[in-house]
């Protein structure tokens, strides 16, 4: 007798049912859709949605639905052609909006409500742009060294110490001419940054110090450069209004940007390549005179009129105190329990700041954020690239003391503080980034890839199913059931993990379908062998499963090793292949061993001497 205890049958059934439920959202497919947001990030209204509906109807563009989706509007279309036409015409009608192509899953609200999602599709299946940027870390280090050089030079001059400081490669040499003041020099260097590596000795005939960055400082500076660029890129990507963008660090010095649904890489690149800077200026007025200037549009002499993000006007002095390239760092800190932004300036900036704060104690100072975004305008049928400059006052604070190279901006909420530090860093001298990889997949190619991948999976699956049923009869049909369950479980796991499915990922599924039956082939061949050796059907089933197990485990572990190596080495698409292959191996162990055994037990386990329909003209022994 071959029977599984009830709990075992029930647990197997439970896993399979859970798999079916999790995989369910994938049955409904996707609609080509447009994701529309306002440029300034404010939420869209029902009125705007009905305007969009009217515009689409006027343009005789077929659409399924247009509805609010959080702050954005989502418009679904029956096909890509209508989606593209709508994208063009809505782009013209809605000037201050961002219209992005996307795929909207048709998951019924009930499933969505309980958090079930379909698999997320990779760029090669949904279309979009992929950029890989490399951060120029050498320049980042050089920038820091130059900033140190300038600070040291100023500090030494202020202390009245004669020297011949110079920067060569990664080393700052400070030959000191006043030999009796070597200790003071040491102190000045320590004060700049106690972590610097200092060696004393004779430099070109003079006693002095050799200053280098310590390994920790180099790593810190590199991480800072990458974080800074990641944050800047993320901000710009948000401006693109793309649904589900990805901006993440990859490896030591690269940043990956993925923009699903974006069609025009040139435009995306222009926005990502926007340059930002900040300016510190004295604020001359932000009440009556400022509002008057806003009304008339004419600021008083020697002033400029700018607005805060909430629209309130600020009059600022025409003279700039400090610009972004003099800013070396801005971090959000808690200073004596109060949220603050700690700003550091280089020596030039420090000198200017010292002068200004001495003369303007208790007057307000403002920070202006300036962003240049190149855009394309079509004039007389010709594309002209113009740069759009946006200037916003991001902070106004009162000067409470005299300061120079390092100061704090307080009077902010923690949220505002973090935001300000981020914007300041974005506007500081950024480390250059270079595009080292770009992949753009047009929407029609993505759709093609989905259809081809689906066809390959279905056709391959059907071929294997037919083959197994013909070759192993009832046992083959049971293996087919397991294969189907396996496919469902892979899809369920992919939906649960939300790992993106790519075309190589689909190839991995196809391969798994072919290889997953291997476990069953091993078991069934073993059962046939046992039957041929004259064993009883029940004993043969038991022996077949038991003896084949260690072989199956060995064989699968080795394939798993290959999959894991692939995963750890691979970039995007290869990772997708490795994931589906590894998942497929694990689920196939479950379905083809436990799953088929449960069904075989149900069919044959309750009979004394069943005739096993396993093909292969085997002689049936008797028990």
């Amino acid at each position, binding site marked *: 007798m071959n029977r599984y205890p009830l709990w075992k049958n029930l647990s197997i059934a439970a896993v399979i049912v859970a798999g079916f439920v999790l995989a369910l959202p994938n049955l409904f497919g996707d609609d080509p859709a447009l994701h529309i947001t306002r440029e300034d990030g404010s939420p869209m209204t029902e009125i705007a949605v009905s305007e969009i509906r009217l515009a689409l109807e006027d343009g005789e563009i077929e659409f399924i639905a247009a509805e609010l989706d959080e702050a954005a509007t989502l418009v679904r279309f029956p096909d890509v052609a209508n989606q593209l036409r709508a994208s063009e015409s809505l782009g013209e009608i809605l000037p201050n909006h961002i219209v992005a192509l996307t795929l909207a899953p048709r998951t019924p609200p009930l499933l969505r409500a309980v958090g079930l999602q379909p698999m997320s599709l990779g760029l090669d299946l949904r279309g979009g742009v992929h950029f890989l940027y*490399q951060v120029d870390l050498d320049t980042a280090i050089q920038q820091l060294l130059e900033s140190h050089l300038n600070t040291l030079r100023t500090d030494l001059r202020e202390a009245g110490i004669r020297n011949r400081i110079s920067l060569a490669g990664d080393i700052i040499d400070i030959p000191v001419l006043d030999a009796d003041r070597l200790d003071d020099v040491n102190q000045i260097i320590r004060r700049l940054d106690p972590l610097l590596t200092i060696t004393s000795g004779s430099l070109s005939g003079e006693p002095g110090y050799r200053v280098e960055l310590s390994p920790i400082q180099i790593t810190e500076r590199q991480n800072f450069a990458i974080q800074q660029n990641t944050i800047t890129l993320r901000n710009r990507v948000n401006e693109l209004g793309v649904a589900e963008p990805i901006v993440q660090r990859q490896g030591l010095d690269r940043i990956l940007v993925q923009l699903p649904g974006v069609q025009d890489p040139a435009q995306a690149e222009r926005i990502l390549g926007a340059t930002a800077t900040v300016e510190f200026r004295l604020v001359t007025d932000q009440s009556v005179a400022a509002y008057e200037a806003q009304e008339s549009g004419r600021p008083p002499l020697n002033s400029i009129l700018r607005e805060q993000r909430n629209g309130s006007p600020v009059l600022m002095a025409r003279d700039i105190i400090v610009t972004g390239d003099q800013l070396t760092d801005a971090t959000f800190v808690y200073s004596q329990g109060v949220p603050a932004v700690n700003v550091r300036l280089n020596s030039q900036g420090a000198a200017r700041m010292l002068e200004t704060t001495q003369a303007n104690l208790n007057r307000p100072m403002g920070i202006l954020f300036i962003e240049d975004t190149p855009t394309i305008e079509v004039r007389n049928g010709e594309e002209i690239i113009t740069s759009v400059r946006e200037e916003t006052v991001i902070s106004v604070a009162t000067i409470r003391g005299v300061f120079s190279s390092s100061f704090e901006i307080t009077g902010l909420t923690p949220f505002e503080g973090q935001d300000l530090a981020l914007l300041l860093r974005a506007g500081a001298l950024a480390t250059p980034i270079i595009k080292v990889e770009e*992949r753009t997949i047009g929407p*029609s190619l993505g759709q093609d890839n989905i259809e081809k991948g689906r066809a390959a999976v279905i056709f391959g699956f059907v071929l294997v199913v037919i083959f197994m049923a013909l070759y192993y009869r009832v046992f083959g049909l049971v293996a087919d059931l397991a294969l189907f369950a396996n496919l469902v479980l892979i899809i369920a796991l992919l939906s649960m993990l939300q790992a993106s499915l790519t075309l190589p990922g*689909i190839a991995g599924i196809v391969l798994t379908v072919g*290889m997953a039956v291997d476990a069953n082939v091993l078991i069934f061949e073993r059962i046939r062998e046992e039957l041929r050796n004259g064993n009883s059907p029940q004993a043969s089933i038991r022996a077949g499963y038991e003896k084949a197990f*260690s072989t199956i485990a060995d064989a699968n572990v080795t394939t798993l090793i290959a999959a894991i190596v692939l995963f750890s*080495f691979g970039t995007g698409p290869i990772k997708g292949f490795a994931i589906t292959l590894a998942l497929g191996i694990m689920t196939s162990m479950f379905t083809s061993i436990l799953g088929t*055994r449960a069904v075989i037990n149900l069919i044959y386990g309750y009979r004394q001497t069943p005739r096993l329909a396993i093909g292969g003209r085997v002689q049936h022994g008797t028990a």
Partner: protein
Amino acid sequence: MALLSKTPEIDFMAGRKIAVSVSAVILVVALASILIRGMNFGIDFTGGLLLEVGYDGPANLTEIRESLAAEGFGTPLVQNFGTTSDVLVRLPPQEEQDAGVIRDSLLDVLAARDSSVELRRIEFVGQQVGEDLTEQGGLAMLIALILIFIYVMLRFRWKFAAGTISALVHDVIVVVGFFSIFGFGFDLTVLAAVLATIGYSLNDTIVVFDRIRENFRLMRRDSAESIINASINQMLGRTMITSMTTLLVLTSLYFLGGEAVSNFALALIVGVIVGTYSSIYIASASALALDVSPVDLIPQKREEIDDLP
């Protein structure tokens, strides 16, 4: 229905000398081609710019080539991709110019010729990224082989591990050599296929070795050669059926999966065929050449992994 109604009795090991010589010749040809002809590396590895566009009707490749040359693009590779209305343009990595600028002007040239042009795909890979990938790819292959060697050592001891690795190295060289000889594009997905081939071929080898180990215990009086022969024969049905189902799905992928995965499928098809052959001849023959005995099979510490399913 059965391919093999009873266990066949083919003397595989008797033919091993012929098989090994045939393999040796294939290996030499493959290696020679890899070294002399080299690989038709995709831009994943070489770096460069690749652009796929679709036209409404069949595209005139000669005219496209001429207009690209006239615009100072030199002589880029221009070919059909999948259908006659799809065109693939590939440029080698450019030293000076910004990739964005090149891409835009390239698109302009293509659009100027025929406004029905639709952008299907752009791939730009910097030279550095390509070099990194080549290095990482080779490293991945090496790491996979070492890990597998360790695993097989733990499970079967070193003579079988050596047999396994020689089979895997054989498979990798033959598949890569196949791509070199016929000049098929070798990109990142093909590399993945080669690694998957390693996994698959290994699978086959392990299954045969498992049976050899079992038979060493059961058939104590027989010679190593006849035990290996018997084991291969007993597993032949399984080996062929699994290869068959895998080839079925791969053929489906090759014909239906589209141009983007066809080379991937092709590499695996070659890999599965070669892997099946090598697990019979190369792996077993090299184990035999190393003079295996029952001692070499039973792992030092026998783990109780034979859990009841």
